[in-house]
């Protein structure tokens, strides 16, 4: 549905997007994961015709965005990072005047505005101004507005930034619903958890470059060790002997002493059991922590720094 090749965007001396390539398949939720200033919004703006690439191509449903902007925009709905609502109009009229730009008949448009409000569960707020809604309601409305023209592709720029966990989860439900409706979704986020839960595939983007791309599981497999077992126990009882035993166990990637005990990196869950059995039976344990890798670790591994 979307195909981006060697896309570059320069702002003067600064390169915001530095030769990225990716492809979004029909019907999937594709995530753009990256820290502030990574180039996520810039890329989305180019796809939405709000910005012109310095070089490279972006193709939407077979059409080049710079050569056929109208054709591309017809297939696209975007929820921009800024909410962009007219302060002088209530939310219903805001949707109406935006929809008017899609050349729908008035009757059809009015029906769609009602549908959109109902979908976002805001039909009782139709007379309210945008700023009178809660943060969660606002984001729902922004997504609903992107759906007004019933586009095949929906771009969501940070749909949950600034929301509390509960509202965030709610917005996730709406995004999953888009997928169920058969839409192709490209979203950006800097929440690892969000990308992990929502997205079929993720591109990790940093300094305008895609540094990794794949399903969440594929990305986590980039790490040498899958699972970290962090055991607290009296360090004195850890003999060379125990360490050696663990190191010889198949599936164990490394064993490290930490200041409160020992850290063991293992390949998969079956090994976890073996390791625990061998240690628990022989020692007094203060605590055990089993940590599955997160995309945070992947980011750390790839860039050598934390995302925020």
């Amino acid at each position, binding site marked *: 549905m979307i195909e981006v090749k060697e896309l570059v965007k320069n*702002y003067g001396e600064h390169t915001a997007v530095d030769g990225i390539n990716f492809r979004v398949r029909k019907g999937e939720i594709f995530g753009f994961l990256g820290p502030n200033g990574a180039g996520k919004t810039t890329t989305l*703006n180019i796809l*939405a*015709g*709000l*910005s*012109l690439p310095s070089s490279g191509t972006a193709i939407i449903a077979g059409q080049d965005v710079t050569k056929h*902007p*109208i*054709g591309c*925009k*017809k297939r*696209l*709905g*975007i929820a*921009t990072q*800024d909410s*962009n*609502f*007219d*302060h*002088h109009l209530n939310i219903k*009229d805001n949707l109406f*005047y*935006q929809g*008017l*730009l*899609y*050349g729908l008949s008035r009757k059809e448009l009015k029906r769609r505005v009602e549908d959109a409000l109902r979908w976002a569960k805001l039909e009782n707020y139709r007379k309210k101004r945008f700023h009178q809604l809660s943060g969660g309601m606002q984001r729902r409305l922004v997504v609903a507005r992107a759906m007004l*023209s019933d586009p095949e592709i929906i771009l969501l720029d940070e749909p949950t930034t600034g929301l509390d966990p509960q509202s965030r989860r709610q917005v996730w439900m709406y995004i999953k619903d888009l997928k169920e409706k058969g839409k192709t979704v490209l979203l950006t986020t800097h929440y690892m958890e969000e990308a992990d839960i929502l997205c079929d595939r993720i591109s990790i983007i940093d300094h305008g470059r895609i540094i990794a791309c794949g399903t969440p599981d594929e990305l986590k497999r980039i790490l040498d060790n899958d699972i970290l077992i962090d055991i607290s126990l009296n360090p004195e009882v850890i003999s060379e002997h125990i360490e050696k035993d663990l190191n010889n166990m198949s599936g164990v990637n490394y064993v490290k002493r930490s200041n409160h005990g020992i850290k063991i990196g293992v390949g998969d869950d079956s090994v976890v059991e073996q390791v625990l059995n061998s240690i628990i039976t022989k020692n007094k344990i203060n605590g055990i922590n089993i940590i599955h890798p997160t995309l945070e670790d992947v980011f750390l591994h790839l860039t050598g720094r934390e995302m925020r």
Partner: protein
Amino acid sequence: MNTRAIKTVLAIWEREMYEYMNNLHVNAMRLAVEPLLFIFIFGMGLGNRVDMGNVSYVEFLAPGILFMVVTNNSYMTISMRLMIARDWDKTLVNALTAPVKPFEIVLGYIFAGVTQALAASVIFILLIYYLLGISFGCIPLLVLFIVATAAFFSSLGVAIAMWLDNPHHLMVVTSLVVMPMSFFCGIFIPVTDLPEWIQPVIEAIPLTKAVEGARAIALGTDPYLLQNLIYILIFTFAVFLVGIHIFKKKVIT
């Protein structure tokens, strides 16, 4: 233009007119009160001391003030609204995510400016006619001048609002460039009464052509109506192109 383009222009126009009608009480105040103040203070107060030959000063002034009305109701509203749409609620960005072309959006704003100027002109003409018994001559001909001048000042509003990034700067430009224009372009005093060196400059401004045209229509004097009209339209087209150019540069980064 295809139907999609026409629908876009009309959609923008409709939104702007909705805003205008929603604020009708404020707009009406400005439409009716401001020009009438000028007519009463300058025309009737000061005017008694002015000798214009065979017409009274009010009769001389009325066509000029009419074009002050046209200027204010096209340039001011359009430049303010566009700046709000770009910087304040940022709805301009939104409009551009729809399948539309920038020039269609600009055209929609200009149509709204022309409509508003036309409505204000009609109210002004009627008020002056019924209050003072002054008529403006051939109305259809006058309307052509009003539309052309409003299109010029709406385009100027687009170009200046898009060029400037700061509402304060917009106010400064308005009060230093657009307001003096109305003082010098023959509205209050004939251009021939200005110092000789500045006359060619003032004559070159489209507003002067419009004011002289309107005065000719009302008083039945000057024969260069068609030339004046074409002159205004050429300027309008040029400023329109400049406006679109700046618009694209500023909005599509």
